[in-house]
């Protein structure tokens, strides 16, 4: 079947198999920031924004995305600003989990989260094996303008 997606504001049309997963289709289209970390919707690494809201792209059929808007880190305006803060904290270790974390955190900023604990709870599904999270939290604190 043929689907139409709007990825990072660009219209993409692609033939897919009915069982194909959004994650794989996005990679086929060349959006390499979308990566697989688990097979079970547990790690948050494959996060994309689906009509503006974060979802794990490994757990969504591509067919469901027909006609919808997808944003990956390549097309996210605030990504660079947060990435800069992360890098200043050394929170970019292997970087594999970074795009997912960035998408989710930028979304938190958009919906006005300013409390670190709330942010942590919302980001609980974004796993990272390298950093031990604390450096991410230092960057998140700055990015969200957390007030103590």
């Amino acid at each position, binding site marked *: 079947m043929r689907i139409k997606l709007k990825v990072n504001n660009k219209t993409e049309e692609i033939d897919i198999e009915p069982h194909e997963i959004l994650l794989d289709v996005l990679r086929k289209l060349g959006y390499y920031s979308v990566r697989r970390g688990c*097979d079970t919707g*547990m790690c948050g690494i494959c996060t994309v924004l689906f009509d503006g809201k974060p979802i794990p792209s490994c757990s969504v059929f591509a067919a469901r995305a027909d006609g919808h808007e997808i944003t990956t880190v390549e097309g996210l305006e605030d990504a660079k600003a947060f990435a800069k803060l992360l890098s200043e904290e050394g929170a970019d*270790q292997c970087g594999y989990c970074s795009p997912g974390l960035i998408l989710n955190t930028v979304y938190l900023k958009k919906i006005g989260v300013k409390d670190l604990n709330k942010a942590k709870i919302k980001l609980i599904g974004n796993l990272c094996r390298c950093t*031990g999270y604390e450096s991410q939290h230092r960057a998140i604190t700055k990015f969200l303008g957390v007030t103590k």
Partner: protein
Amino acid sequence: MKEVTKNIIKKDAFGLMLGKPVYTNDLAPKDSLIVKILRSPHAFAKIKHIDISEAEKIEGIECILTYKDVPKNPITRAGQGHPEPSPHDWYILDEYVRYVGDEVAIVAGKNENAVTKALKKIKVEYEIFEPVLDFEKAEEHSSIIHPEKEAHSMFEIGFNAPKNIAASYEMQIGDIEEELKKCEVVVKERFYTQAQAHVAFEPHSATSYIDMHGRLVIISSTQVPFHVRRIISEAFDIPIRNIRVIKPRIGGGFGGKQAVHGEPFVAAVTLKTGKPAKLIYTRQEVFESTYRRHCMRFDVTLGATKDGKLKVIDMEGLSDTGAYGEHALTTFMVAGSKTLPLYNKVNAVRFKGKVVYTNTVPAGAYRGYGAIQANFALESALDILSQKLGIDPVELRKKNMMNEGETSPIFKIMGEGREGAEMIIKSCKLNECIEEGMKLIGWKEKYPRIKVSETKVRGVGMAIAMQGSGIANIDMASAILKLNDDGSFNLLIGATDLGTGSDTILAQMAAEILNVSTENIIVYSSDTDLTPFDTGAYASSTTYVSGHAVQLAAEKMKKLIIKEGAKKLEIPEEKADFDGEFIYEKDGNKRVSLKELATVLYYTENQKQLVADASYVGKESPPPYMAGFAEVEVDIETGKVKLINYVGVVDCGVTINPNLAKVQIEGGIVQGIGMALFEDVKYTQNGKLLTNNLMNYKIPSRMDIGNIIVKFVESYEPSGPFGAKSVGEIGIDTPPAAIANAIYNAVGVRITQLPITPEKILNAIK
């Protein structure tokens, strides 16, 4: 220092975070055949018959390989120096399968669908044997896991396949029994550590193709490209010169990628078909069919006088290497060599034991590498001793631990797989680590416990640890610096950045010597064709060993620049110097900028390319040290443990990039917390891994860790580059023991088996 000791941002930061195609799967040729592996459903069996005829008929299938189609050369997948201290007991494919998940056949096809279908159509008849699943029953089990005559060790490692023993080791100083008799207090306890999974988030990935010269090129997510090249050459009987291994960015390794995993399978397909191939492991495959940590059992006996002088340490261990003996001997020896010197004032010390085969997921290198297992045992036992003696555990440690300027006979006796290297510890600030840690955790106010409510108690506990900096006399690294015609430099290194930031750190070191900004150093790492040799990123070696090589190369480059600059200025070499920007006359006013000199050198005058290279092999392996303090809250109704604070104070010498060093420690601590509290490995009765996904195998999330507080104490290691020691592993070592000790101090129960689950605590309380 201008560049070193600065928080310079990682060179690849934005490329990594903003999604540039950098990992193996992103770089695999677009027309790669998809490779998948048919894996054994049985823990131990022999393939009687294998029928691929139906599978081959599926449209899109290009090749199916079984053990009959590949060379049967016994190798070890362990990426270690040569000759490897691990038994050669692994084959690309074999007629025996030794664990659930072991490789049976390689299937390659044009698309995922076809390959998946084909996997289902292969018919295998097995002769099933009784598996060895319990490592305590492995020795002299009626099933022999490696009955094949080809399996052998490269030198004496205590390999005894008919008894299911992959390696064994024993050493003793002094007379244990005699000394124990003289001791007023003796502690004897048995400890168990589990098989932790690495969970590097990029799954193991490899891709291969044949280049225009007919050579085999492998792109792989590996920590050890040069070892991969050598092992593939051995496995397939092709000369090293016909193989090129490229390491792109890696999504975490932690030791799990210090080996060959998917490389032989893609290589087999490419060699057979001439076509590009790629194999990206699923998460389930990573769990079931790559590496895990060696589970170990330790029987610890400690003897001391009444006033708390430790006189005897006796540790007898048993380690479970799973189906193959990768890192069997070395992780076991490290268990001794990276714990026993902590208490260097004893009269007698013994360390012995065996590493046995079982029909479970193979064990391999994992951050902490034996040290964390033994640290849990020894540092728990030490707390038991402190209870018996009625001495504060911190005081007991201070009285007995190693100090600067001291040594331990263990250093010389125990290396990794062979003798070690004698050394006197020139930097050891354990004392300061402990003092600082006590302050940060509030030891004096909180030890041993504070009751928070009727059901909740908080306790504090601690442990100390040491690691090493590379393997002395084995780990070798080299670096090449090349001056470009704009005055910038290429730094070519075989060292493998796994995400730690080592590319950046090594560039900082080169920049420091050359007096230029780190931006002027363009790093290219790990391509066996283009970069010089390096044993790889493991054993906490990169900063210390590779760093040294970079430092030496940069010093040579500086000399070359001065020499050529002097020529250009027409002054004697001794009269010239280089300040990073200009080559100038020391007491005169002639000068030329590096940029101008470089341009001239390449286009007009005295034309020549400036290249400097250097190699380094560590003569010793100075340990970084750490004191870890845990504050836990235990719910006595449910047994649940909440980690409130974890304080790690570290002596790793000079931190080349303090931010990156800190994150290394934080990351290590959190993995250690996972091992202490959550990460549990379970099998079915038939030996199939139950914890083969992230739903069943829980790693710490950001809500599980409490506050992690990391501090460095100031120290300078004279043998290290710029005073640095290593920082990669030490962070992981203390949490298991410190948390177990904190739980004991909170509720008086001693858990001796990791992970410390609520269930175990509750049972012990009742």
